[in-house]
């Protein structure tokens, strides 16, 4: 038997997955990673990319466009003044491309056969060895695994987590859709020239496209597994991988949907945009050119009967708004 035995005092504060000695900590991470991997195989709280109407809501993207051009003759006074030249204006594009689907029929919680199916731990209060119940499994395994998944860091231990990136390819993750969920655009200042007056009003350039990814780690096999009490054989056995998977796969897939129902034990994962929770990946910045309309006032002399003016988007980029995919926990 090469498994490990948890020790802890469930009546005390700060219950966590405490390994017997620090040297065993890597095996804790291996086990939690396995649980997250199991979640990634059946992500019961799922995000998808749609063209319109995504239920996480609408976010707007704003850019500037040129004002309409003017043309006057010399008899009319030549170039129209900046005050008499139409201002630049904002145009916005709405994105509602992320939809969340919470499974209506997640896997049932695993059966605690003979009340001895789950790992054993050392009950420090009584000094006995005791098989875990559901709450113990939550405290020692599920909650720490969910903490990784909901952390916002797309590590191998965050299997099944969704996150945003400006890249369409992220190591360890799978692109949910080639359709970006948000595109930041700005007026292309270089495209507006005096010689081009009257320029087309809207001449945008894409600054960043933002994509939705899901962490999909490769399967890992923990080097050592938890020990459980084999009720049939009256023996301590190290869990087989299949037994571990049969227990903790359905357990995490169920709890992220249904939660624990207990205050202080937050297991439900729900995503939102710009709400509460941890930031999942890159913040989506909506930027624009911040120069005033008057600063973009430009003239073009064509002939004495054609003095043209137009105001162009100009200035330095500034952030109009930031949109953030977040994941929040509740009980």
């Amino acid at each position: 038997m090469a498994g490990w035995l948890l020790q802890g005092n469930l009546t005390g504060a700060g219950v966590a997955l405490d390994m017997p000695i620090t040297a065993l900590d890597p095996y804790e991470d291996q086990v939690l990673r396995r649980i997250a991997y199991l979640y990634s195989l059946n992500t019961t709280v799922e995000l998808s990319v749609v063209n319109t109407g995504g239920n996480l809501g609408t976010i707007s993207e704003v850019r500037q466009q040129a004002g309409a051009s003017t043309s006057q003759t010399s008899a009319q006074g030549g170039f129209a003044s900046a005050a008499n030249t139409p201002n630049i204006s904002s145009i916005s594009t709405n994105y509602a491309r992320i939809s969340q689907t919470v499974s209506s029929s997640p896997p049932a919680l695993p059966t605690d056969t003979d009340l001895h199916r789950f790992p054993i731990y050392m009950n420090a209060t009584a000094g006995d060895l005791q098989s875990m119940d559901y709450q113990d499994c939550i405290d020692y395994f599920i909650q720490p695994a969910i903490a990784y998944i909901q952390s916002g860091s797309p590590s191998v231990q965050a299997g099944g987590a969704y996150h945003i990136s400006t890249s369409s390819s992220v190591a360890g993750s799978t692109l949910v859709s080639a359709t970006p969920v948000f595109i930041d655009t700005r007026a292309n200042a270089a495209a507006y020239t005096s010689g081009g007056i009257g320029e087309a009003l809207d001449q945008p350039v894409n600054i960043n496209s933002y994509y939705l990814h899901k962490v999909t780690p490769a399967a890992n096999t923990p080097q050592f597994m938890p020990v459980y009490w084999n009720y049939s054989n009256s023996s301590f056995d190290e869990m087989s991988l299949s037994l571990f998977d049969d227990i903790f796969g359905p357990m995490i897939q169920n709890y992220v949907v249904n939660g624990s129902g207990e205050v202080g034990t937050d297991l439900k994962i729900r995503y939102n945009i710009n709400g509460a929770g941890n930031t999942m990946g890159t913040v989506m910045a909506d930027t624009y050119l911040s120069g005033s309309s008057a600063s973009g006032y430009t003239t073009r002399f064509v002939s004495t009967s054609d003095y043209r003016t137009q105001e162009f988007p100009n200035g330095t980029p500034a952030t109009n708004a930031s949109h953030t995919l977040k994941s929040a926990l509740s009980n």
Partner: protein
Amino acid sequence: MNMAIKVSTTPVITNALELQNIATTDGTTQATIQAAVRAADHKLIIRDSAGTETFRLYGVPA
């Protein structure tokens, strides 16, 4: 004067009071030994997930 107890020529209790060559024990002897170990109360208790004791293993201290 010491005098070992022998069965035929095989000692079963030596002059040094060592039990030797016991091939088996009867129920009374087993119960006596078990009671002695139990009385020492060095035990490992296994409880199910409801906290109910389901197995108790007695032993001797290291």
